[in-house]
């Protein structure tokens, strides 16, 4: 379980997050939504101790990341797979080595097992046969999926996804959404999905957290979105739908209008 208590964070004079508290329950998929620049990525980085809160605490499995020693922090981090918004692939290595990297450092697999696992992860993200390509030779969406394959390679207990479907075509987006659901259902992974894509939220999330104006404006089960619990949230959700232009996603949300 990831528990965030009264977290506040700013950069210089810019206040980004203000007194945020919530928890990510074991086995659930929590979507974090909010405008661009609302602090979603910043919030996600706090969950693995990449950023330190100005005030407040982040607990992972009962351990406070802020006070953990570096050695302990590293142990905790091994429970996580993280997909960065920009992919953060190692550009000196080819695709295969990128995905094999965590396996080589942190698993006891033999080299043929590593190879098999890398192929498996690549096929999970629909990218068979690109292993020999360098990240610079891939498209943006492909890079994102390679990064996703790297994040899931070690079958972590927690996976943090920063905009897993941004820049992907609708069909590939669906594959990724299904992969996220599959990992959480079959392998009981606890997931945090930062996204703009309401379709992703509706298909893969159990609960939704909405960041607005430095605050955690609303958090609740994804089904509650149908009841339009909050005007600001409702405006955000509906704006996304127009943007998405997907009638199937908008039908259940607008049925009462």
């Amino acid at each position, binding site marked *: 379980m990831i528990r965030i208590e009264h977290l506040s964070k700013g950069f210089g004079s810019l206040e980004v997050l203000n007194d945020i508290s919530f928890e990510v329950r074991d086995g659930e998929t929590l979507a974090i939504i909010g405008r661009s620049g609302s602090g979603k990525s910043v919030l996600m*980085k706090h969950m*693995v101790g*990449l950023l330190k809160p100005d005030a407040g605490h982040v607990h992972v499995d009962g351990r406070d990341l802020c006070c953990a020693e*570096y050695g302990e922090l*590293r*142990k905790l*981090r*091994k429970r*996580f797979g*993280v997909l*960065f918004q*920009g992919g*953060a*692939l*190692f*550009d000196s290595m080819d695709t295969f080595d990128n995905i094999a*990297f*965590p396996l080589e*450092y*942190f698993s006891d697999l033999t080299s043929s097992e590593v190879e098999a696992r890398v192929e498996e992860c690549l096929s999970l993200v629909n990218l068979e046969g690109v292993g020999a390509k360098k990240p610079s030779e891939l498209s943006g969406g492909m890079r994102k999926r390679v990064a996703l394959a790297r994040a899931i390679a070690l079958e972590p207990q927690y996976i943090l996804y920063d905009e897993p479907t941004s820049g992907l075509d609708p069909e590939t987006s669906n594959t990724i959404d299904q992969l996220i659901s599959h990992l959480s259902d079959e392998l009981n992974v606890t997931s945090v999905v930062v996204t703009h894509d309401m379709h992703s939220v509706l298909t893969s999330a159990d609960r939704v957290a909405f960041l607005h104006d430095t605050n955690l404006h609303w958090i609740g089960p994804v089904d509650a979105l149908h009841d339009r619990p909050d005007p600001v949230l409702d405006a955000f959700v509906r704006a996304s739908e127009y943007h998405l232009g997907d009638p199937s996603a908008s039908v259940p949300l607008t049925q009462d209008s």
Partner: protein
Amino acid sequence: MSSLLEFLFSPLRALGRYSILMARAAASLDEIRTYWSNLFDQMVRIGIDSIPIVSLAGAFSGAVLTVQTSYQLESPFIPRSIIGSIVVPSMMLELSVVVMGFILAGRVGARIAAELGTMRVSEQIDALEVMGLNSVGFLVLPRVLAGVLMFPVLYVASCAIGIGGGVAVGHFGGFITAGEFMDGARQFFKPFDPFFGLIKAVTFGFIVTSIACYKGYYTTSGAEGVGDSTTEAAVLSCVFILVADLILAVTLL
């Protein structure tokens, strides 16, 4: 007022952060086995790949020094062998190692700063960290160690080829034979000279790689930041090479 304080304290803050980074690198020495292949990789990139340029610089500085010394000492009362007695210690003590340090500040230092800086701004360092790797042990330690280990090797190459360049230019230019040159060199040879050169090489290796790692590792704000780090790494390395050169000369000679 506060900006003045900021101006005065920022070098101190930089020194503090630099020291902490180096302390973290030293603390990850016990994991060096995990990063073995990185160390080997860096020794090749920093050391072996620099041999051509360092040799070239060594050869030319040795040759020029010989020609100029011979010009300055053109007199029937001075034995020609004195040229060897001057050129060889000058190469060993100062010229080959400082010229090499400057060249490597550009070649090695800028490269490290650009590489780590790019990794920082594209979140690759964060990606290493969240995997549970110690990014300082993985990135900084192998580079600094490789610098400390390989600069002396490069020094030996640069110095030997530089002296060779001096002999060659003296011989073919017809103003001193190889025999006279080496006689002169032998006459005033002190075993401490090459040893002192090696100490300088180790020091410069540490200066160039550690400053570059520091600048690269703490890069902020995008492509511009990477550019700044790269330039600053090269310039700062040169400045600190000069400072260290003087300090070593004053304390050890």
